[in-house]
């Protein structure tokens, strides 16, 4: 399966735009497997360095993870203040506590301008962006989280331990 919505200007990129390897994760902030994948991906980004750019898109399963969509909107709101990845990290590092007050605490802890942040949390276009991520993931064959795409193709192997890193290193020597 291919990624039907290519990486575009609405995505936040971690790593250089021109990097030859593009890793896209569809994830859910409240999903325990995504929580497990978070340090693995972070380690991978350090190891592969500027050969790779990383994009995170939201795939919240809201009926079983009722706080996931709000957390996703919080990361998008932080992105408007150029702190997307700081918020992404602090959310995954505190995954078990994602209610509204907690999100405000995390936003303050990474130095967001709070009036702006609380106002942005209500923005319809951010919610629509998160829903759009879900739809693009579903149309690209995402059926569970986390699902990874490498250079536009769905990765169906294991991502646990250093399996994903090994795969990337062997595919892009």
């Amino acid at each position, binding site marked *: 399966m291919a990624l039907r919505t290519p990486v575009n200007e609405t995505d936040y990129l971690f790593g250089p735009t021109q990097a030859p390897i593009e890793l896209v994760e569809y994830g859910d902030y409240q999903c325990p497997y995504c929580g497990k994948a978070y340090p693995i991906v972070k380690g991978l980004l350090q190891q592969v360095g500027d050969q790779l750019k990383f994009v995170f898109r939201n795939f919240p*399963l809201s*009926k*079983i993870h009722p706080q996931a969509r709000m957390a996703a909107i919080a990361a998008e709101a932080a992105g408007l203040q150029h702190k997307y990845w700081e918020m992404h990290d602090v959310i995954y590092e505190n995954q078990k506590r994602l209610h509204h007050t907690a999100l405000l605490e995390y936003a303050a802890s990474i130095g967001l301008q709070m009036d702006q942040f609380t106002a942005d949390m209500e923005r319809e276009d951010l919610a629509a962006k998160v829903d759009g991520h879900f739809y693009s993931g*579903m*149309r690209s*064959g995402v*059926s569970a989280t986390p699902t990874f795409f490498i250079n536009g193709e769905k990765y169906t192997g294991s991502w646990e331990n250093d399996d994903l890193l090994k795969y990337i290193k062997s595919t892009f020597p």
Partner: protein
Amino acid sequence: MLLTQSQAPDFELYATPDQKLKLSSLQGKRVILAFYPADWSPVCSDQMALYNEMLDYFHKANAQLLGISVDGKWCHMSFSADRKLHFPLLADFEPKGAVAKAYGVYNEEIGECKRALFVIDENGTIAWSYLSPVGVNPGADGIMDALEEMDKNKKV
């Protein structure tokens, strides 16, 4: 497995402990039948969790989703409550697997439904079907493709 363009066999199965649902009562609506092996097994619950999020999209396409397995109505009730599912789970329980057999998606060896999807059009004709390997979550994109294709054909 029944072929595309064949008539979807009618059935009446328990959707809740005291209510039955008849396929033909949904005529005029599209129906997505998701046969799955068992409540509580890992892949099904992922698959059903995904479909649970898809209900708005299905609804917009005038489609009703129905899950079907050989589990009994009380098991379905408990599974559905636990996973907060907002669509009916039908119990193909007595005679066991009769509907799955009629659709050609019963696994005689283990006594469960295979993991199969059918999209049925407004007139009760099978418009699309898909048999997934049992351990693989088929996702929802095939269903959405089929629904979009039906819209296209309608306009022509």
